[in-house]
């Protein structure tokens, strides 16, 4: 009969106290795991999107806003930039790939991104095509669209289906529906785990056509002069990949100096965003989780100390049977290890299980796909520290049991 079995029997015998202690530990561990895993996964997911492009050019405004609106399809765009700037950038020999992004409408809250066919030629960092079509083809006609995987799933649209875009970037009741311009689904993208999964990609020409027609109509109704010099068409942003990513700072400066707009480096903006806004929030959450874990370890210490105190008679009996001091200490220590180990395992399950439950909500809200079961290395370190703290907390009652002389405790009643 080994000590772990004996310790397990004692824990079962005092099941309520054991359960409460394990619950305390697991709550702290779950919090730590969830915060660390969420941070790791969100950083990874955000970097995955930001890493696709070296530069984003757009109208004057906040660089972060420009990145969020054109890369992550969140937030409002900063303003427009002349289409000819896009043509100039694309023809630059240092540019490997560039594509325009024209915003204006949505369907069921999913943004319709006006771009060009070669948008889908975007290579990933290994040189393979980033976009993969699950069904159909890229747009052939100017009102053809390609759906992100999440849009296809949420809307139920299939190849050949039609729908109307709604004016604006978010779904608002009563917003103007462009009923004269039906879109037709020509393709559906395979899931990429990025914000692209919740976008609808159409032609930039369709965006221009819808909005210029609407503007002309509005002008006619209002009796104002016919606007639009069609040669001064604009786009909301320009996404750029460079032949040499190391040139992005120079290129950004050139764009800023040569146009009325701004240029942002997505990965830099996202890192600033994470460190400046998400970082402090995560630190506070981690501090709270750390306090919970510390309290839990203290609970292990108190529980074991009380158990050892209550079990002075049992420990004396074991000594009277011939158990060495170190053996009774090992027994008490084993109980501590089981409590801590049980708490850590349960906490891991709750923390990551909770993430697994929330993963769909997270994807809906942000478009980021998280892997809830991946355990990042800093989480492993945190778990190791917690296990060591639990072991340390178990040492004190074990030493106390080691030091006791059995003769007095044998007189204690059950």
């Amino acid at each position: 009969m080994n000590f772990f079995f004996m310790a397990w029997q004692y824990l079962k015998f005092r099941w309520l106290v054991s359960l409460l202690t394990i619950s305390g530990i697991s709550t702290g561990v779950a919090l730590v795991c969830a915060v660390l895993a969420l941070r790791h996964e969100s950083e990874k997911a955000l970097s995955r999107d930001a890493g696709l492009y070296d530069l984003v050019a757009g109208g004057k405004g906040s660089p972060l806003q420009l990145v969020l609106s054109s890369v992550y399809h969140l937030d409002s765009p900063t303003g427009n930039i002349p289409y000819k700037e896009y043509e100039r950038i694309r023809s630059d020999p240092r540019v490997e790939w560039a594509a325009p992004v024209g915003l204006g409408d949505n369907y069921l809250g999913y943004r319709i991104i006006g771009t060009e066919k070669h948008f889908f030629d975007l290579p990933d960092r290994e040189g393979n095509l980033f976009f993969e079509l699950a069904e159909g083809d890229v747009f052939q006609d100017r009102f053809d669209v390609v759906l992100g995987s999440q849009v296809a799933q949420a809307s139920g649209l299939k190849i050949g289906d039609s729908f109307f875009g709604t004016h604006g970037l978010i779904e608002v009741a009563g917003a103007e529906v462009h009923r004269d311009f039906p879109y037709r689904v020509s393709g559906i993208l395979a899931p990429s785990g990025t914000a692209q999964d919740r976008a609808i990609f159409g032609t930039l020409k369709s965006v221009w056509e819808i909005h210029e027609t609407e503007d002309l109509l509005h002008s006619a109704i209002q009796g104002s002069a016919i606007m639009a010099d069609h040669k001064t068409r604009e786009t909301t942003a320009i996404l750029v990949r460079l032949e040499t990513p190391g040139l992005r700072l120079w290129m950004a400066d050139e764009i800023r100096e040569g146009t009325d707009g701004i240029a942002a480096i997505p990965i830099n903006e996202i890192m600033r965003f994470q460190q400046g806004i998400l970082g402090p929030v995560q630190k506070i959450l981690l501090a709270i989780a750390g306090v919970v874990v510390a309290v839990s370890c203290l609970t292990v210490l108190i529980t074991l100390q009380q158990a050892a105190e209550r079990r002075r008679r049992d420990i004396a009996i074991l000594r009277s049977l011939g158990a060495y001091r170190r053996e009774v200490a090992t027994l008490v220590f084993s109980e501590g290890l089981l409590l801590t180990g049980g708490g850590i395992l349960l906490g891991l399950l709750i923390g990551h299980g909770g993430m697994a439950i929330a993963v769909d909500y997270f994807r809906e809200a942000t478009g980021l796909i998280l892997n809830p079961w991946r355990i990042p290395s800093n989480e492993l370190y945190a778990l190791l520290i917690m296990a060591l703290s639990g072991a340390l907390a178990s040492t004190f009652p074990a030493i106390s049991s080691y030091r006791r002389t059995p003769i007095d405790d044998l007189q204690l009643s059950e």
Partner: protein
Amino acid sequence: MIRLNKVSLNLGKTDHSLSVQFQLPAFEVTAGEIVALTGPSGCGKSTLLNLVSGLRIADKGEIIVDGVNLMKLSPAQLDRHRGTHCGMIFQTFHLLSPFTALENVLIGLRFSDRNQKYPKKRAIDVLERVGLGDRLHARPDELSVGQRQRIAIARALVGNAPILLADEPTGALDPRTGLEIFHLLKRIAEEDNRTLLLVTHDPSIAREMPNNFDCSELIKPRELTADEEVTGS
């Protein structure tokens, strides 16, 4: 087998603030002997058992068990001596509540015969011998007091300890059950040729024992040392 020679042990102060001392000039028991330790409460019967088991260490004298002087052993060696030489049976059974009858006996075996190859078989055999073969998986609180004492006896026997130290094993039992338990213990000791030291207050049990040792004079007021006389403590 067991020899105590000029043993003294300071027991501290009694309830009446009287400092007392256990003093035993000589005590000898041969292997396989069965002895009742008798005398009034608090006379030192249990202390004698505890000295033989190594649970208490004397201040002076010699305690020789199986040729080894316990006074010269380290705490770990005393633990080992208890496990290999002494099977202890207590008045209030001292069973471990979370464990079944079988597990209690297995725990006893864990510390007494550490190299036992077939512990479970050995424990079941012993439990069957004390008449508990059908209650192997019952916990102490599911058993009668008589059955609980049988588990304690099985636990004491399981490691084949040559000495059985029984501290009032019938004290918590009704007279009929007490007598049954006593007969069981005596029979096993005789069959196995084990030494049995049995503390009892019961004259009928003492009468049935082949040998009696009167412990009435073992505890006396403590003689002050020269230093203590000077300081008056």
